[in-house]
Each structure stands twice: as structure tokens, then as C-alpha cells.
């Protein structure tokens, strides 16, 4: 197949991949509950419950201060006895997820805006609109 046929064909395939992915993402995000609850280790907690269960923490980063529920305390108070025995996958409503260690959780907060921020990790580890924290 010559370049004149192959190149437009490849471009078309890439556009289709992008379009179908957008459709998939839109459908999946549309199906996610907008409820004010986060699943932690398989159990559902409202933000009010989370903030009443845990102590508050403020972390100071390059781009400002972030206050919220201390992640390590949250994990302890939701029934995980050995924090350092597990890793933790934090999942956002858009499918963005990051797996972190206990030492990271000890320097992390869940803000009222449902955003997870860590003191000792790059910004790429910030997960917005958290829907689940899985304990592994």
C-alpha cells in the first residue's frame, strides 16, 4: 500500500480510537454515582463520616497549603489494623488511579473537595474527585 493511501488510513484509525475512547469515558463517567460517598476498603463512607472519623492534617506544598482528613488515620479508623502491610490504590471518577505506600499515606490528605494530595509525591499523584480507596 502506498503512502497516499496508508497515511490517511492511519490518521482515520487514530481519530476513531480517540472518538471511541471519548465515548467510552463519557459513558463510564456518566454511570458513576454523583453521591457524596467514597468506598474505602469495600465499605462506603460519606464525607461527613470520613471527617468525623479522622483527625485533620495540613500539608504545605510548592503551590499552597492543603487541609483535610489524614489518610493514614482514615485507613486505621476504617478497620485496617496493619497499615504498613498493604498498598493503597486511590481511584478518581475519571479512572485516574495511583497506588501508594503506607509511608505516602502518612503524608497525605483527603480534602473536602474529594481531592487526595501527598506531601512527599509529585503532583501526578494527586487524584481528583476520589470515588474509592482500595486496600491491597
Amino acid at each position, binding site marked *: 500500500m502506498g503512502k497516499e493511501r496508508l497515511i490517511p488510513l492511519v490518521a482515520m484509525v487514530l481519530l476513531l480510537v480517540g472518538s471511541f*475512547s471519548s465515548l467510552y469515558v463519557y459513558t463510564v463517567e456518566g454511570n458513576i454515582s454523583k453521591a457524596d460517598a467514597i468506598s474505602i476498603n469495600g465499605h462506603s463512607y460519606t464525607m461527613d463520616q470520613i471527617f468525623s472519623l479522622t483527625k485533620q492534617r495540613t500539608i504545605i506544598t510548592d503551590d499552597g497549603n492543603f487541609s483535610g482528613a489524614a489518610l493514614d488515620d482514615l485507613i486505621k479508623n476504617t478497620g485496617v489494623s496493619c497499615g504498613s502491610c498493604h498498598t493503597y490504590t486511590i481511584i478518581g471518577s475519571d479512572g485516574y488511579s495511583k497506588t501508594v505506600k503506607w509511608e505516602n499515606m502518612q503524608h497525605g490528605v483527603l480534602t473536602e473537595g474529594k481531592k487526595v494530595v501527598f506531601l512527599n509525591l509529585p503532583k501526578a*499523584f494527586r487524584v481528583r474527585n476520589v470515588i474509592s480507596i482500595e486496600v491491597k
Partner: protein
Amino acid sequence: MDKKRLLVGVVLFGSLWGLSEVVLGSYLRDSSLPAGAIMTGIFAVGLMMMTRVLYRQPGMQLGMGLVAGGLRLFNPFVGCFICSAIAIMAEGAFFELIWYRMSRDLNELHKPTMSISMGVISAYTLYVLGFIVTQVLTPLLSSAGFHFENLVMFLPQILSKGLFAALLGGITVPVTLLLKNVDVSHVADKIYYTASLSVSALCWVAVVLNTFLMLSA
């Protein structure tokens, strides 16, 4: 064209790309605009394509990626700057691979279908692969480590976000081809070197100043 001219061209366009990533990229991110897609679809593809059209010399874009990535290292304030720098360098390498089979005079692109298609392919591939490189490198260089399932879960989002970059690339490449009749080899040495090196120096000074301003803020 002699190698000295090409090298200065690499430094000039690489510096412009680096400056745009540092200053404009940060501004777009802060404004909650699709910074990655805009930076790749317009600036990365546009500037690399510009050198391809003006100098007709493969290999320059890899050098531009190295210069732009190097400049990015001087602005350690947005996310994992080492990862961003490596991602920019990787974009230069991926561009070279995509355009490897194209002729130097780009005569294959005389039809709009071809130039638009190459723009779509370049921008989409650079965006998706650049994003993946960052998503792999950032955790690898952090205390949390890389987890493959995190990347797989977010892959549909990456493929989806690349669509906007692809559409921008489909416009950028045909527009850049308007420069096809410009011949930089006819620009007098004195003007070429003075202008190129001055603009490059300004880009580096602007980034370093930006760094000091952020440090003192």
C-alpha cells in the same frame, strides 16, 4: 546547509519550544485548559514541523527535544520536572520516527489530505506516547513506585484526550507548510546568527528569571 547553521537552528527552535512549555504550559494548566493537547498539537508539532519545512534536515527535531527538555529542567516547579523534561525529549524522538520515511522536500504533502493526516498522526501519537512516558517515569522516580494497573485504568482517558491534540495537529501541519517557500539558507550569516542566538538567549534568561521569581515569591 552547513552544520553550524543547523545547530543554531536546533538551539533556537528548541529554546522556543522549551520556553512555551514552561511559561505558556504552566499558564494553560493554571487556567484549567487542556494544556497537554494544546502544547503538543500546536507548539510541539508546530515548531518541529517548522524546522522540518525550513531546514529540510531530519534529526533536528531530536535535538530540539533535547534542548527544550533541558530548558524544562530549569523550571522545577510544575509536577515532576525531570519526567516532563524526559517526556519532551521523547516527543522529539517520536517525531523523528514518525517522519522517518518522508522525503526531505516533503513533496508527499502537496495534497491537503496528506498534510492533515500527518498532522493528526503526529499530534495524536506524540500526545499519547508523551503522556504514557510521563505516567511511567513519574512513579518510577518517586517513593511510591510504578504500578502497571494504574496506567491501564487511565488508558481510555489518555486515548480520549489525544483526540483534541490530533485535531489541532491536523490544522497545525498544513498551516506550517505555508512556510515551504521560505529559504533560511539565503539569510545573511550575520543576521541569522545574531537573531537566532539572541532569541535563544532571551528564552533561557526568561526561564531562569521565572525560576528566581518563583523562588522569591
